[in-house]
C-alpha cells in the first residue's frame, strides 16, 4: 500500500480518536490494533492479506446466529418472504439490545454438512432478500433500528435464483435501505461477498470485523478472469485488497471491530462481546439523529464513495489529477 493510502489510514485514525466513534473498553483495544495495523501497512505482504481471507472463511468462525444468541435478548426469528419461500440462508428476527428492540438481518452459513446444504452455504436467494425487505419495512413502521450482519460468499448463482430476479432483488433491497428513516448498522462478520453482501449493507454505519473480508469478487473468481486460473488467488487477493484495514483506508467502512487475539473463532463469547459493544455504541451515536437527517447522511455517505479525476483533455489521461475529497 502506498504512502497516500497510509495517509488516509492515519487520517481515519485521527478522526476515529477525535470523534470517539466507538466508545468504551473496546475502543482503546481497537485503536491499538489499528495502530499496529498501520505500522504494518507500509508493507503488508500478499501472504498477510491472504491470511485475512482464510480467517474470514474459517470453518469455526462464529456465524450470524452464534452472535445473535449472545448479543440479543428475547430473540424471535421471523421466517418467510410472504410470497413464495423461506430462505434459510438469510436470518431475520427481532431481539433486544440493551433494552431496545432491534430488527436483525444476517446471512447464515451452516455449521455441519446438513445445515450447510440447507442454508446453501450462506448464499442468499432473491426470496431471502425479500424476507429481509419485509422485516425492514416492519422495522420502519415500528421505529426499530436495524442491525445487519453480513456473511456470504455471494448471492446464489443458480438458475432458479436468476429466474426469481436475483439482480432486481439486490437492487431493491439497497433501495429500501436507502429509504429507511431508522438507524441501520451493518457489520461484515466473515465474507462480504459482492452484490450478495451490499444488498444488506447500505447502512448508516458500516463496520467490519478485524479478520473479515469485503470484496467485489472472490479472489478465486478474480484470478480465473485475469490470470485464467484460480491458482493465482493469493495474488488476486493481494490485488483486490479485501481486508479490513484497506477497506477502512478507502473510506468504505467506518470502523474495524476488534476480534479476540488469534481470530473470532478462538473465543466466540469474547468475539460476541466486542461485536455487541460496537453495535451498541454505534446505535447510541445514531439514535439522536432525526430520521430524515439520518437518511440524508446515509445517502450522502454512499454518494461520496469512489475515486476519480477530472481531465481537461478528453482523449488523453489527465496529467493534472484532482482526487475527489472524501
Amino acid at each position: 500500500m502506498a504512502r497516500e493510502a497510509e495517509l488516509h489510514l492515519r487520517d481515519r485514525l485521527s478522526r476515529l480518536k477525535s470523534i470517539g466513534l466507538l466508545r468504551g473498553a473496546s475502543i482503546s483495544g481497537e485503536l491499538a490494533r489499528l495502530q499496529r495495523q498501520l505500522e504494518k501497512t507500509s508493507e503488508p505482504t500478499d501472504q498477510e492479506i491472504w491470511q485475512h481471507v482464510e480467517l474470514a472463511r474459517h470453518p469455526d468462525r462464529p456465524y450470524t446466529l452464534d452472535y445473535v444468541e449472545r448479543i440479543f435478548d428475547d430473540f424471535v426469528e421471523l421466517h418467510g418472504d410472504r410470497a413464495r419461500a423461506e430462505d434459510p440462508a438469510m436470518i431475520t428476527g427481532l431481539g433486544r439490545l440493551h433494552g431496545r428492540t432491534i430488527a436483525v438481518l444476517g446471512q447464515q452459513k451452516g455449521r455441519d454438512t446438513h445445515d450447510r446444504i440447507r442454508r446453501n452455504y450462506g448464499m442468499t436467494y432473491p426470496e431471502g432478500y425479500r424476507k429481509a425487505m419485509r422485516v425492514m419495512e416492519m422495522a420502519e413502521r415500528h421505529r426499530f433500528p436495524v442491525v445487519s450482519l453480513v456473511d456470504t460468499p455471494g448471492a446464489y448463482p443458480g438458475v432458479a435464483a436468476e429466474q426469481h430476479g436475483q439482480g432486481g432483488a439486490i437492487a431493491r433491497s439497497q433501495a429500501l435501505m436507502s429509504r429507511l428513516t431508522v438507524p441501520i448498522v451493518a457489520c461484515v462478520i466473515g465474507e462480504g461477498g459482492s452484490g450478495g453482501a451490499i444488498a444488506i449493507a447500505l447502512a448508516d454505519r458500516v463496520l467490519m470485523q478485524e479478520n473479515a473480508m469485503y470484496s467485489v469478487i472472490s479472489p478465486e473468481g478474480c484470478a480465473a478472469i485475469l490470470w485464467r486460473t484460480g491458482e493465482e488467488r493469493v495474488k488476486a487477493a493481494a490485488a483486490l485488497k479485501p481486508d479490513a484495514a484497506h477497506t477502512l483506508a478507502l473510506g468504505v467502512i467506518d470502523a474495524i471491530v476488534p476480534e479476540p487475539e488469534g481470530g473470532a473463532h478462538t473465543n466466540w463469547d469474547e468475539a460476541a462481546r466486542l461485536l455487541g459493544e460496537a453495535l451498541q455504541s454505534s446505535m447510541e451515536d445514531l439514535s439522536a439523529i432525526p430520521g430524515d437527517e439520518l437518511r440524508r447522511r446515509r445517502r450522502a455517505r454512499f454518494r461520496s464513495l469512489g475515486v476519480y479525476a477530472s481531465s481537461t483533455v478528453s482523449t488523453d489521461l489527465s496529467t493534472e489529477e484532482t482526487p475527489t475529497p472524501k
Partner: protein
Amino acid sequence: MAERIDISIEHRNVPEPLNDKPHPNTCPRCGSHYRDDELAENLHVCPHCNHHFAVRARQRIAQLADEGTFEEEAAELRSQDPLEFFDVRAYTERLVEAEQKTGQGDAMVIGGAAIERVPCEVAVMDFAFMGGSMGSVVGEKFCRACESAAGRGVTLVSVTASGGARMQEGILSLMQLPKTVCAVEDLKDAGGAMISVMGHPTTAGVLASFASLGDVIVAEPGALLAFTGPRVVQQTTREKLPEDFGLAESNVRFGHVDAIVGRRDLRPYLGRVLRLFSKNGAHGA
C-alpha cells in the same frame, strides 16, 4: 420487421474472421454482412433476422435524441487507480488503451437531451469501454445524471450494456452499487422518474443496482439480463440451463421487465413514456 434487403453482394464479401471472432459487421445469428453505413441506417439491427448488434454510446444517443439536443455533461471524468491494481498488466495501462480504442473517457456518456421533443436526461453505457464495467467514473456520472434530471425536473433515460463491476477498482467498484441506488432514490424523492432500457448485456453489478430501479424497464430483444451469467451458473451449479436462460424474453415471462422493445420502436416508445411522466402529465399532447 423491415423488408428484407438484398444482401447477396455483401455476403460474397464477408471478411475472414480474425482469431475465430466474426467480423463485427457480420450478423452472428444469420451470417448476413453489412457495410458500416448500412448498419447505421438500420440502427444496427440486422434487417434480415432482427438481431440487435451492439451500439456504441454515441450512436445510441444519435438514434434516440432529437437532432442537436444532446449536451454532454461530466465528459472530463477519468478513472484513477486507487488500489494500484496490477494483474498481468497495470489498470492504468488498460485505461489508456480503452480510451484510445473507443475515444471514450469511460464506459458511460451522460447529458441533457430531448426525445420526441420531451426534454430528458440520458445516461448511456458503452460496452466497448472495458466491457461496460462500472467503476468510480461510471458511478459518478450516473449520479450526476440523476442530479441533473432532478435539477431540471425531467425524466432520466438510462441505457445499459455492462458486464458488471470494474474489478480493478476493488471494493470501490462494489460501492458504485449503493452509490447509484442512492442517486436514483434521491431523484425519485425529488419527483423524478427513470426509464431503464436494458441493452445486451446488462448483468451483475449494473443489473443489481440502478438498472433495475427504473419506473419502467424495457429490454432489447435477445439481450442477456442476468446477475450471474450462464457460464458461471453452469460451472458453479452443474445445472442444465434453459435455452433462453437470462434472455430478455425469459425476463419478461418471469415478471422482471415491462416490455421488449425493438430498437426501431424504441424512440417512439420512449417518447410516449416520457410524455406520461412529464410533470403536467400532458406534455406534447
